[in-house]
């Protein structure tokens, strides 16, 4: 018998006797779920902390290298000056700035970029002068300003940190008031951070009764950086109720399907805008079509979210286990999704 056959037979026979020890399977499954738990929480953290990160990057010298990487992970794409001016979010942000500080109209846009559906960033700098610089980071979906960085607005000889606390506060108050809105209602607290290398102040503006600050401001060197914290940590604000209406009354039937962040970012639309469009008598499919998004894409996004919710519910034992695979769930939910996205307001279901 040729040796080749011997070897082949031997290997196959030997393989039969090999059983993968269950310990290995257990370990692999564990590392898989751990990996994804970690990854999932990272993504959530990323969204929430993105503005915070920019602030920390400026404040803590060692973090300056780490932060850009994290932001880059969300695939930031650069924008040209022209793109900013035609971009809805970009345009609105610039207008806000020009209204607040008319002198910035002469500033040059030195850098702009965006993370689709997450954030648009624009950096402007004064030509000549003392090089005043301002960076604006805007939420890509809601258009709300999330983070403002004001640099070198004070003369070099007398940087911000050389001013008295009262003077610093009035500068910060002025900036928030101009860019974000009235702050009289907020409680104020200021403290100096323990940073031996550089004098740093943290200013918190807190809504009465709330534990976390609504605006958090760091002042260091010649930079004021304001982060909007409130409103971000309460994603419920993002939700809109009663997308459709029946007989003039709000109809909540489709809310659980349409309140889907992934859907909003797919359609590049805020929940409020979506509701407005639907009120005009359009269906979700039509709105999607006007944005060059296919019906199938919409179905996929919504069905995925629903199936995930179902699986999560089952894992938490909130709902009885159906023992269906996720494919089966997707299939099951699809017809319902189709019904919702083709529905028009004021028509019977």
């Amino acid at each position: 018998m040729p040796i080749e056959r011997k070897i082949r037979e031997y290997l196959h026979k030997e393989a039969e006797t090999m059983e993968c020890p269950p310990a290995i399977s257990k370990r692999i499954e564990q590392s898989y779920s751990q990996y994804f738990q970690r990854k999932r929480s990272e993504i959530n953290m990323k969204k929430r902390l993105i503005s915070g990160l920019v602030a920390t990057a400026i404040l803590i010298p060692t973090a300056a290298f780490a932060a850009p990487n994290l932001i880059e992970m969300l695939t930031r794409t650069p924008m040209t000056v022209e793109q900013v001016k035609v971009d809805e979010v970009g345009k609105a942000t610039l207008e806000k700035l020009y209204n607040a500080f008319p002198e910035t109209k002469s500033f040059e846009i030195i850098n702009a970029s965006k993370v689709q559906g997450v954030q648009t960033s624009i950096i402007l700098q004064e030509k000549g002068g003392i090089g005043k610089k301002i960076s604006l980071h805007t939420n890509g979906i809601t258009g709300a300003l999330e983070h403002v960085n004001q640099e070198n607005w004070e003369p070099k000889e007398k940087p911000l940190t050389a001013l008295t606390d009262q003077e610093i506060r009035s500068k910060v108050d002025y900036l928030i008031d101009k860019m974000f809105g009235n702050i009289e209602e907020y409680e104020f607290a200021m403290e100096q951070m323990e940073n031996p290398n550089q004098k740093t102040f943290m200013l918190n503006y807190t809504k009465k009764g709330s534990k976390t600050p609504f605006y958090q401001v760091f002042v260091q060197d010649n930079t004021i950086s304001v982060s909007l914290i409130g409103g971000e940590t309460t994603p419920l604000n993002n939700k809109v109720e009663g997308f459709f209406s029946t007989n003039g009354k709000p109809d909540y039937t489709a809310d659980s399907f349409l309140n889907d962040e992934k859907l909003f970012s797919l359609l590049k639309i805020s929940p409020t805008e979506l509701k407005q469009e639907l009120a005009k008598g359009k269906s979700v499919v039509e709105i999607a079509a006007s944005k060059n998004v296919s019906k199938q894409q919409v179905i996929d996004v919504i069905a995925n979210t629903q199936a995930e919710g179902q699986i999560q519910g089952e894992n938490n034992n909130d709902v009885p286990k159906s023992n269906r695979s996720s494919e089966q769930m997707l299939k099951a939910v699809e017809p319902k999704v189709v019904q919702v996205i083709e529905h028009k307001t004021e028509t019977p279901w």
Partner: protein
Amino acid sequence: MQNEYMYQLLQKMKEGDQQAFRTMYDATYQDVYRTVSFLVDHQQDREDVMNEIYMQMWTSLANYDTNRPFHFWLNGLVIRQVQRFRVKSWRRFRIFERIRAFSQEEPHWDQPSVLMDGTKQMITQAIQKLTDKQRSVIVLRFFHDYKLEEIATLLEIPLGTVKSRYHAGLQVLRKNLSNLPPERMEEINAN
């Protein structure tokens, strides 16, 4: 196993779908484990390599060509991880240590050697005598029944190199098995 279906599973698994991962794992782990066992001798090392393979699945997903059989891609992944494992220098250090510690011991595969009949043991030892490179080629050729061309693609080496490793490997096996006593030879033939 349909390629398209496996691909979809992989996609889901990449997104963190536990169910998809389990389906995928159940469908493949025996085969992967056996291949790894043929290529890596020690139990603890096999475990590490197995873990690596499944953790690496999504980074390699981009390279997966749906026109190719799924198992071909999977075995490529297995081979690369086994190779990576061997390259790690700290492991080399451990291997040296082990060689010292175990030099008196018979190399063992899954079964304790007492349970193996003599012929099997001869072949086991002969295969253990192959170099790692020869062994990869022999296992892919005879366990997975790949053509030499396919092995070249999998290992990312020229066909000529595959051929020379293949023939050298067979040579070693032949040499080590030729001193089987005649009755043993018959035993093998009867199998």
